[in-house]
């Protein structure tokens, strides 16, 4: 590893000597630490609130969480060129492929997971392990607008003037826009119809934001309709905000979220411990409960009643996208969205 100009511990010792911050619990020395990414929003809350304390308790490992969307993680990791800024990725199908192509992952050995037997077959491979499923649909504020029925409703009044829009940086954004595009003659690889339709109603649209900003905008009442995943809806509900999830007529989009160990990590053993904990019964069960409402992958954990699916077998009934076809186009789409939506 690279030698640093002055050691971190010296700095921390110096810092506590400087006074005023010595109360910080982070300075207590743990057996190890690990930096894992998490998605901003519900994922972040859940992993901070549930997983981090469990990991500390079980293995005395400090879990540092970097809230980043999948694409941002890939970008940061690529930029770091061999010195990964974090040890574990959490990714959606699209970025997962990009990461594989870019050689960003350590070869994964599923046998190192004690909980491997609790996972359905094929959930762990030599790339990573599936830790949850995500379901994407439409969220709306029932006090402000009636329930929309399909993706196309987003472009009609009264919803369009309360719509919060986000681009292709995220999986949920990309998937939703593809589904929208399909309704206007587009396809998995052609999102132009969606952009053309959006452009027509652009002046009416309430807000266009970065993906991470959407829950905040919704909470502030800047928009009352948006596409998002079930967890975000659950979190907003947890804050006492009026929000409901609807499954569009053409079906909700579903995909598995996977975790991967970063190539070149210095915390390999701790990374496996972390992943094992994440797919273990305890974590999976806790995350299934409100306000997190994750879709569990551990066979010992039943799917809760208020989830949009009864078992993981239903995943096939949901809309799934072939990300190997989407990925090559995505950078251009992001740029295109920026330009088309810019004022």
């Amino acid at each position: 590893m690279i030698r640093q100009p002055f050691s971190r511990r010296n700095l921390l010792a110096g810092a506590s000597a400087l006074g005023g911050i010595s109360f910080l619990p982070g300075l207590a020395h743990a057996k190890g630490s690990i930096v894992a990414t998490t998605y901003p929003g519900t994922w972040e809350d859940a992993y901070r609130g549930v997983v981090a304390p469990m990991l500390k308790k079980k293995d005395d490992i400090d879990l540092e969480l970097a809230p980043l969307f999948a694409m941002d993680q890939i970008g940061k990791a690529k930029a770091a060129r061999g010195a990964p800024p974090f040890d574990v990725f959490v990714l959606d199908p699209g970025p997962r492929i990009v990461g594989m192509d870019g050689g960003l992952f350590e070869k994964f050995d599923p046998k190192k997971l004690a909980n491997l037997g609790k996972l359905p077959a094929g959930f762990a491979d030599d790339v990573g392990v599936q830790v949850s499923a995500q379901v994407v649909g439409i969220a709306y504020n029932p006090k402000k607008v009636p329930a929309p029925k399909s993706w196309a409703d987003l472009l009609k009044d009264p919803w369009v003037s309360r719509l919060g829009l986000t681009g292709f940086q995220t999986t949920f954004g990309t998937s939703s826009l593809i589904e929208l595009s399909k309704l206007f003659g587009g396809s998995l690889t052609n999102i132009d119809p969606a952009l053309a339709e959006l452009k027509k109603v652009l002046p009416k649209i309430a807000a266009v934001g970065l993906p991470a900003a959407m829950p905040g905008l919704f909470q502030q009442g800047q928009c009352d309709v948006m596409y998002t995943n079930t967890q975000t809806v659950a979190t907003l509900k947890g804050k006492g905000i009026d929000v409901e999830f609807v499954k569009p007529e053409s079906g909700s989009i579903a995909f598995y979220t996977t975790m991967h160990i970063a190539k070149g990590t210095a915390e390999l053993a701790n990374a496996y411990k972390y992943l094992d904990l994440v797919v273990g019964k305890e974590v999976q069960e806790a995350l299934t409960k409100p306000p997190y409402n994750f879709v569990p992958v551990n066979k010992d954990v039943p799917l809760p009643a208020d989830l949009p699916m009864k078992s993981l077998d239903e995943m096939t009934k949901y809309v799934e996208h072939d990300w190997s076809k989407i990925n090559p186009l995505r950078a251009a789409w992001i740029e295109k969205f920026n330009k088309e939506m810019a004022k």
Partner: protein
Amino acid sequence: MGRKRSLGDISYSLVIGGIAILALLIIVTPVVVALMTSFTEGRSLKFPPTGFSFRWYEQLFDASQSRQIHKAAGNSLLVACYSTLFGVVLATLASLGLARNRHRMARVADSFFMSPLVLPGITFGLAALVYFSTLGFRPSLDLMIAGHLMVTMPFILRTTTASLSQLDPALLDSSQSLGASWLYTLRRVTLPLIAPGIAAGAFLAFMASIDNVPVSLFLSNARTDTLPIRMWGMMESTLDVRVAAVSGVLITSAFVLMLVMEWTVGLTRRMRD
């Protein structure tokens, strides 16, 4: 006086006074609003706040619930302390060397050292990331200290140079001819007299470091999150009410620090001149 006030003069008072009040409102309102919302009882940020409670402050100061924020605050303080410390040493030395030097090169060097003030922060942030990762460094607190040092050092250089150039050169000459060595003069005369200038600059540099986003954004990772980055994340994604509580803490401490600096080194006077 006895002069009759003309219509023009009345309109002058109305317009200028009115706009000045608007300006004050624009300056003060957001600060007050941020403070008020931090005492809300509700779980989301609404104005006016619903009810009054300290719950968000309690949550903020709760070690287990807000560990990440504490850690980010610790990082911010650490980076700010170290970058200010190095900045004070380097900038004070440099201005001792350059402030009284009339040579052309000295003026050029001085404006060079001030250039981080006008260079867009995001450009330097990107440049620093490219540079450090080319050299093979991982984002870390050390790198952030180095980056912050560069963008905050000019504040110290500016106030120190200003107080040095207000220092009567005859004082140094007298000290010298009274038999004092360069170091003794520095210790007993120069430093005590420019100390308020250094302190004012150090304060500004410290605050600038605490507040820095563009450089931290590029040089931080999850371990080395700083408070503004953390807050930005909280503000964007969940609009966590703790953001308001953090703001409250920051506003209060900035206010107190400013008062202290005003009393000790005359901060406002130094910033005006």
